[in-house]
């Protein structure tokens, strides 16, 4: 399996540095949680992230008191930052499921050392994403009206609306991702239960491990369930961003009403997701000394996925522009003209530079193994993907069919506080995760070792 991968990727770097055994892999990963003292750097990072989370809560509290008027949204731009950030975050989440489910089905064994924290990243990103539509509905305390439940008003949701599909897609995605993540953790929680010396930690890990003891019968059912979940999560992850794109594509606004949206949204989601995986993996492997497990091979492969999905995104931009001209529809043509020459033209140029021009340097093989360069390019891609959603939401809405209803959108400080606040919340959750749970799947790493092979 490994040899075939090496031929396919042309990469020589191993998935795990040679010389590791079951014991060293177990000790290395579990000691980060169990014995390594919490560093000052961790407290500093978590502290900053925590303060940003508090800023988010403050911005949301003020929003609940004053209403959505504190944001920059107006008519015609009713969606603004809330939807831009929702789509951005949910897109970032996609890489986790792609790594854990699709790469599992494709037998890409290199995924085993990055799937755990990529899944955690997915969960936290989806949590951040989920905030935005809820606080954008205006009366968030009535957000449960989105779900079909028998009520005294005698009304039900409108199932012909993509916004209702979105509720089901995102909540299913959050549930399945959480299940997948937790089930993957159970055998490792048993390892932590057996390794920890602290009574409280033993109790907590013991309860979470549910009495996992590694019986062959259990493993057999476990692997079946895990594989089935992967099979279910694969169409799910493709469907989620497809449904998100329906929120736009089903509408009649120029710039939204296109059939390219579903594949182009999914590719963009994986693009930004892998950028976030790299932005997290590169500092984590450095700080925790995990270069043996997250090797150059992982950086290479992630960079290649970014390059490939980035090109699909570029194709999406080209088709959008082409159809704007070729359709002969003057509103579509105007949308294209407005992107290039309208008041938001600098955002559009920045988008092209961030998402298409700069990532092309990933063609250079040497650069794909340079952590610092990859970190910076990933940051650029994340900015680019945020700009893409800004262009789609704001620039399409601000000048629609009637010149009398044109307008401009200016985000307020509350918009920015909410957005930056969710980044803080995401990072705070990641900091807690690396401190209290094994960030690399220990049992899946054991299966990669040469000694795990059963000799006849």
């Amino acid at each position, binding site marked *: 399996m490994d040899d075939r991968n090496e031929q396919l990727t042309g990469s020589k770097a191993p998935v795990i540095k040679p010389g590791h055994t079951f014991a060293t892999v177990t000790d290395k990963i579990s000691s980060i949680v169990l014995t390594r003292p919490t560093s000052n750097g961790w407290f500093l990072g978590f502290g900053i992230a925590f303060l940003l989370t508090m800023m988010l809560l403050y911005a949301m509290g003020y929003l609940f008191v004053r209403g959505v008027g504190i944001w920059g949204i107006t008519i015609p731009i009713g969606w603004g930052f809330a939807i831009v950030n929702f789509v951005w975050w949910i897109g970032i989440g996609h890489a986790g499921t792609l790594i854990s489910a699709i790469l599992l089905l494709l037998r890409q064994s290199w995924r085993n050392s990055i799937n755990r924290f990529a899944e955690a990243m997915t969960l936290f990103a989806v949590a951040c994403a989920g905030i935005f539509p809820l606080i954008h509905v205006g009366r968030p305390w009535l957000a449960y009206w989105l779900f*079909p439940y028998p009520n005294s008003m005698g009304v039900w949701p409108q199932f*012909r609306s993509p916004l209702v599909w979105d509720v089901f897609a995102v909540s299913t995605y959050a549930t399945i991702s959480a299940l997948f993540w937790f089930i993957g953790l159970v055998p490792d929680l048993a390892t932590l239960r057996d390794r920890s010396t602290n009574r409280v930690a033993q109790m907590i890990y013991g309860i979470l491990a549910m009495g996992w*003891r*590694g019986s*062959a019968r259990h493993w057999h059912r476990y692997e079946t369930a895990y594989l089935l979940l992967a099979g*279910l999560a694969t*169409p799910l992850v493709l469907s989620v961003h497809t449904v998100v794109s329906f929120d736009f594509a089903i509408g009649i606004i120029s710039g939204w009403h296109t059939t390219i949206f579903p594949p182009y949204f999914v590719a963009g989601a994986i693009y930004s997701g892998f950028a976030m995986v790299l932005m997290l993996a590169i500092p984590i492997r450095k700080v925790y000394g995990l270069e043996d497990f997250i090797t150059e091979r992982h950086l290479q492969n992630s960079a290649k996925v970014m390059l490939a999905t980035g090109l699909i995104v570029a194709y999406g931009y080209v088709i959008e522009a082409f159809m704007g001209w070729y359709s002969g529809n003057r509103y579509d043509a105007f949308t294209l003209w407005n992107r290039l020459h309208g008041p938001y033209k600098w955002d559009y140029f920045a988008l092209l530079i961030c998402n298409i021009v700069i990532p092309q340097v990933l063609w250079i093989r040497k650069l794909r193994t340079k952590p610092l360069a990859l970190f910076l390019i990933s940051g650029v891609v994340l900015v680019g993907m945020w700009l893409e959603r800004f262009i789609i939401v704001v620039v399409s809405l601000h000048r629609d069919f009637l010149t009398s209803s044109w307008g401009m959108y200016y985000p307020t400080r509350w918009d920015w506080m909410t957005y930056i606040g969710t980044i803080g919340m995401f990072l705070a959750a990641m900091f807690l995760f690396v401190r209290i749970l094994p960030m690399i799947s220990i049992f899946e790493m054991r*299966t990669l070792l040469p000694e795990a092979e059963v000799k006849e």
Partner: protein
Amino acid sequence: MKPTPLYGMMAEFDTPTDLVSAAERAHQAGYKKIDAYSPFPIEGLAEAIGFQKNRVPLVTLIGGIGGGLTGYLMQYWISASSYPVNVGGKPYHSWPAFIPVTFELTILFAGISAVLGMLALNGLPMPYHPVFNVSRFAFASKDRFFLIVFSSDPQYNSKATRDFLERLNPRSISEVPS
């Protein structure tokens, strides 16, 4: 004080290869009530101890079908019967619009069934289990491999079973109190 009855006899091995061959030999020797423990899934180990009935796929399938039916019938009943609303002249039963939610609920129910079904069939959560009484069993979640013959096995005999396990060249043998 009465001596505690034994739950079984446990042998410890160093490598997955040893465990699989030991499990195969125990199964061939006629031991039916045996189990093997390993820190990671080992291909062929479940077959070696004679485990065949895996009902997780069936549970998942039933969950998926149930989810799909729930999704579609709920939307049909709501949109065509309980609360019919004319939206742009679209039919009350507009089935293409019902596909996304049907799909999502299929996945949701199937996924939850796979996880809960796996846990239920495995008898988890079960925080206490007699095998945890063996102190060396803590290494079953690290780098050691264990084979147990349960005392409920009709062939079980503390002397003969111990002799049989000795012949498998284990690293250690322990009695598991229940």
